[in-house]
């Protein structure tokens, strides 16, 4: 009996010694105890696949084709065909920011500028743009501390004054979001068209916020309601 308990305790210590405890960090591939059908022979998102010569499961569209699942406009862009939530295709103002040979200003007719669009723009701006351009649009995002130079400040004349020689119209800002400019890469692959216009609207809203006339009663009301340090 003594020997049994000795062996018993020893084997428990051995098992714990080898197997450890729950939550211990480890780098080897996890053990699968019942792995029936856990791994099926199908192409999964962003995984490798031996069927293709380059081993990449995620395929790019063949040139000149449109992938399944990507909505395309039913009518040509010239006849008002557009996709509310998709990626750029077409040369109309909504999809390109251009009107003929020039950048367009104002918003395309497909975009209704209201508070919900501004909120969407604010959210998407804070996700994608604020890291460099700053949450206030002043070009002082966190990356400016890490050696990224010449970040655009949206409160300069080139953005706010339509008479300035380097003025960026809405269409130009849209194009910069889509394709990038100078040191900035394009974000067209990760921000759908509608959200790009929402970001343009939010940039304009931030610009206005620093130019709001105090004579305007609604601006006055906001100014009066601002938090102030207590005097005593």
């Amino acid at each position, binding site marked *: 009996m003594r020997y049994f308990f000795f062996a018993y305790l020893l084997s428990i210590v051995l098992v714990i010694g080898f197997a450890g405890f*729950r939550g211990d960090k*480890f780098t080897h591939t996890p053990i*699968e105890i019942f792995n029936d059908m856990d791994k099926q022979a199908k192409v999964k998102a962003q995984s490798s696949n031996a069927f293709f010569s380059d081993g990449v499961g995620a395929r790019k569209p063949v040139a000149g084709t449109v992938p399944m699942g990507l909505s395309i406009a039913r009518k040509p862009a010239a006849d008002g065909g557009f996709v509310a939530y998709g990626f750029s295709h077409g040369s109309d103002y909504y999809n390109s920011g251009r009107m003929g040979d020039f950048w367009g200003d104002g918003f395309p007719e497909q975009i209704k500028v209201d508070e919900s669009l501004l909120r969407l723009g604010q959210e998407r701006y804070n*996700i994608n743009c604020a*890291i460099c351009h700053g949450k206030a649009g002043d070009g002082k995002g*966190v*990356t400016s501390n890490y*050696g990224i130079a010449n970040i655009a400040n949206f409160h300069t004349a080139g953005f706010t004054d339509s008479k300035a020689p380097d003025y960026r119209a809405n269409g130009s800002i849209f194009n910069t979001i889509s394709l990038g400019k100078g040191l900035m890469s394009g974000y067209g692959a990760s921000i759908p068209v509608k959200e790009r216009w929402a970001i343009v609207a939010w940039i304009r809203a931030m610009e206005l916020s620093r130019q709001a006339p105090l004579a305007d009663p609604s601006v006055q009301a906001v100014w009066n309601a601002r938090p102030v340090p207590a005097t005593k």
Partner: protein
Amino acid sequence: MANTFPRWTNTLPLKLLVCFLFLGAAVAGGVNYYFTQKYTRVGYMPSQPIPFSHQIHAGQLGMDCRYCHSFVEQSGHANVPASSTCWNCHQHVKTNSPHIALIKESVDTGKPIEWVKVHNTPDYAYFNHSVHVTSGVSCVSCHGKINEMPVVFHDQSQSMSWCLDCHRAPENQLRPMDKITQLDWTAASAGKDQKEMGQKLKDAWHIEPPVNCAGCHR
């Protein structure tokens, strides 16, 4: 006539019974403790081809999860970013690092970086990221505090019973939509009661998670 069985055999059945009881208890305890994802998956911390730190990017720098995992709100699969996403900043920042050289090579050649998948749903369960993050379930509920992990590890068991715990009582996890990617936010930190707030959100958004088999296995 001598005894066929010596005296010590009198207690043998009892001793054997005790031994088997102890052995049975140990085996049951061991299976219970080890044969579960709480043991087999929690703590899985593979080394990645590039030692990307979520702690620096999502924690210190305050980047939103969706800067890189850009389609998590639209797609069932939460995408790992393309190398070009890293390149947005790292064409300027830390350009002399050998790890950034790997990113550059990937951007130039189009050959993807082979990140190791940490969380792996079995192929017969169809988990959809978009429906969860747009229904008020935060990243932190399933992935833990990624913003504090220099190397990402498997934080929650993600077993079926764990899924069902939340599907049966989603009010314990629901939070306002603008707090989904704020991993440090808790109801308590905002001075609210999670259960009460979760119940309100559940009613307002009509959150009725499926608890039938076909909800996830189709």
